[in-house]
């Protein structure tokens, strides 16, 4: 920073005090940051767990416990505390009797303003999507943000058809968004009038995610149906 002439009256400081002060401040700073990190970590993890379970149990009807899995192109493996190293993070919800109530996955796509992130649940029994929960969005309040709250729009997802095609490698009918009021098939999403781009984004992300994940889920359903501890 520029030093005005008046300050040249102060003699230039030798190196040792400068390094000493910087070192002291850096050490103090490091100590405080590590302390804060250490103290807050368990609380933050707990908060994250509560947040994801709140969304999870809302979107999978009947679920009371959860287990996490890692879904890749070939396999579904149980997951511990860490985030999946590759592939998608699959949440499986189990009811009070320990049976599989449904699975949930995250999906995201570019919406009107910014990226929209959604948690959706899939029920293998009916081969359909049972519900969505918007996790994060920055759509226009009152218009685009209806995708999170509008009851008519959310009704689209109470039984959204996601049957697989005969080969089992993709959806029989791709999920698409149609003009408001013209929904005629169970795999279509009735867009919100005036919020086409946001609605299309939801359709696109669900389609992309299910095309990838559902074939793998169908192949490894038995892994998911085993409650914790082995025998179903």
């Amino acid at each position, binding site marked *: 920073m520029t030093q005005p002439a008046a*300050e040249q009256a102060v003699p230039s400081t030798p190196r040792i005090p400068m390094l000493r002060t910087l070192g002291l401040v850096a050490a103090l700073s490091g100590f*405080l940051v590590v302390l804060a*990190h250490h103290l807050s970590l368990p*609380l933050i993890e707990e*908060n994250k767990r509560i947040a994801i379970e709140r969304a999870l149990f809302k979107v999978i009807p009947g679920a009371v416990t959860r287990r996490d899995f890692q879904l890749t192109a070939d396999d579904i493996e149980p997951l511990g505390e860490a985030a999946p190293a590759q592939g998608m993070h699959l949440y499986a919800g189990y009811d009070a009797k320990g049976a599989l109530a449904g699975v949930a996955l995250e999906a995201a796509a570019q919406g009107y303003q910014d990226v929209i992130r959604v948690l959706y649940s899939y029920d293998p029994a009916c081969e359909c999507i049972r519900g969505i929960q918007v996790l994060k969005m920055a759509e226009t309040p009152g218009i685009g943000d209806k995708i999170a709250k509008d009851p008519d729009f959310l009704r689209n997802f109470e039984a959204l058809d996601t049957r697989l095609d005969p080969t089992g490698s993709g959806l029989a009918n791709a999920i698409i968004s149609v003009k408001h009021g013209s929904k005629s098939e169970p795999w279509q999403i009735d867009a919100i009038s005036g919020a086409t781009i946001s609605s299309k984004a939801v359709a696109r992300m669900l389609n992309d995610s299910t095309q990838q994940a559902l074939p793998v889920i169908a192949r490894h359903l038995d892994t998911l149906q085993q409650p914790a501890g082995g025998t179903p």
Partner: protein
Amino acid sequence: MSLPERHEAVTADTFLRGLWQENPVFVMLLGMCPVLAVTNSAINALAMGLATTFVLLCSSSLVSLLRKMIPKQVRIATYIIIIATFVTMVDYAIQAISLDLYNALGAFIQLIVVNCMILGRAEAYASKQRLGATLVNGLGMGTGFTIALLCLGSVREILGAGSLFGVQLFSDNFQPWVVMILPPGGFFVLGAWLLVFAWYRQRRERRLLEQEGVTTDGR
């Protein structure tokens, strides 16, 4: 190492200055970015104000305590390290308290570190004054900042969402003025507040001039 200090006596003025005459937002126009960005609701505004005040108090206090030890050449670097430390601590604290609040405030918590008000206070005041005066002055500045944020946040939330602190104020017939919660609204509302204060100040000056018997040129 440092220039001889002129210590300021701690008076009520030390605190009150930050609220009105030297209000960081409305008068000195410092720390503008969070002012516009996180004031789309009153609760966000309050949280940001409190977080900034905390960082201001802690960093100014530490700078004031260490002021005799910090050589002139590295002072800015030292201030920034100190401020960044407390901002990181606040960042973790908010995450631990409420993830929803953390997501609402977003990157702006970490951006407190470049809030010109905090660095400016450290350089202009904390490095020259004793701990007591620094604390009181910091408290005044922080409160002034929080009040300014609340002014903006409340207006924007009431007009743009029909609520205050999440409590719905109007009936369902209220058509929210959505642009107020969006970026342009931030600019407009802050501009409006500055207009109000400028108008108030102009009126007060005119009245003072009239009282002293000085006539203003014919308008």
